[in-house]
């Protein structure tokens, strides 16, 4: 009987065990999928831009569409000035999108032949969001210097209220990486568990006689519908992550609100 444990898919297995100074640095299936995503995106962009034609080929128009999409997203949230962050936002968006999409494959040419969703681990999404925050704070302080702290002191508030407002603003700022990472992680985790639970209903009912076999078509339809929804969520969450990155980067560019 097929494995119906909905959590098993998130297990991390070392592929290339490695240990440096007692720290486990194994190359795991998670690392493998990240590497595949990076190589895949690089190949796509490289192949799409080798033959730069005025009338784009299919690959080139995909690359152009992605470029336009991300550039438009940055322009609409952070203005033209925000385009200096284009390489970062584009990389982030493409990485999350590819990793999410790779996670939608049940079988994958990886050790063990099963798929894995890198973004279903909160440490990965948290590292990504901390990277965003590090850039926001680093660039904000470098560009605006002391004025970056204006982010925590909104204008037009009576003086005594700053005792309350400033801590609230600080907490709100500190909660950004958490909410950014939790959102992506929770979406991917919940979606994949849901898919697996409904898929295991098919197996359980299918092995329970004729009536169960007929009844198993219901969760089958559900799984098909959920798979479509999951593709939407995989794209949408990459988009949301990127657009919130743009919004936060806008704060680094213009801290005065």
């Amino acid at each position, binding site marked *: 009987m097929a494995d119906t444990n909905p959590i098993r898919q998130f297990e991390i297995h070392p592929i290339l065990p490695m240990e440096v100074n007692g720290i486990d640095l194994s190359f795991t299936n998670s690392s493998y999928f990240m590497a595949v995503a990076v190589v895949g995106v690089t190949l796509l962009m490289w192949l799409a831009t080798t033959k730069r034609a005025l009338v784009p080929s299919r690959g080139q128009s995909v690359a152009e569409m992605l470029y336009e999409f991300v550039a438009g997203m940055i322009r*609409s949230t952070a203005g033209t000035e925000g385009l200096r962050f284009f390489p970062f936002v584009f990389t982030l968006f493409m990485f999350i999108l590819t990793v999410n999409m790779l996670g939608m494959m049940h079988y994958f040419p990886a050790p063990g032949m099963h798929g894995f969703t890198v973004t279903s681990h909160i440490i990965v999404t948290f590292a990504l969001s901390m990277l965003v925050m590090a850039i926001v704070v680093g660039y904000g302080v470098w560009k605006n210097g002391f004025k970056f702290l204006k982010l925590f002191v909104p204008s037009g508030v009576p003086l005594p209220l700053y005792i*309350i407002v400033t*801590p*609230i*603003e600080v*907490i*709100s700022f*500190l*909660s*950004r990486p*958490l*909410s950014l990472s*939790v*959102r992506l992680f*929770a*979406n991917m985790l919940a979606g994949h568990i849901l898919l697996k639970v409904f898929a295991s209903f098919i197996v359980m009912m299918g092995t329970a006689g004729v009536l169960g076999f007929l009844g198993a078509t219901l969760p089958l339809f559900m799984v098909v519908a959920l798979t479509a929804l999951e593709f*939407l*969520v995989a794209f*949408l*969450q990459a*988009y*949301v992550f990127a657009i919130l990155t743009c*919004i936060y980067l806008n704060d680094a560019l213009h801290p005065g609100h």
Partner: protein
Amino acid sequence: MSDQDESNHSDPRDKASDFERRLNAKIEARRVEEERRNPSRSGWSIGLRYGSDFFAGVLVGAGGGLVIDRLLGWTPWGLIVGLILGFAAGTLNVVRAARDINASGDTGAKN
């Protein structure tokens, strides 16, 4: 109506600009239609955004309060004040998220 079409067809330049105009109108109409039909922010994602924003505010507030308790030994007060401030910060996050989402919806309707 048909008279106008005839006059436009007679001059090739007019015809081209007319074509451009009609094409742009079509593209615009199609874009508006698509935006209306496909509110790419599904309810699920908006709900999760509010939820995670609020949750993160409360968590960071409470966590910060606990850390202050540990460091300074103000045992219950750091947590209490941190939780309250975190709650406020979470609400602020939700208000900001709602403003963002509403703003993007408005520009979509306007353009």
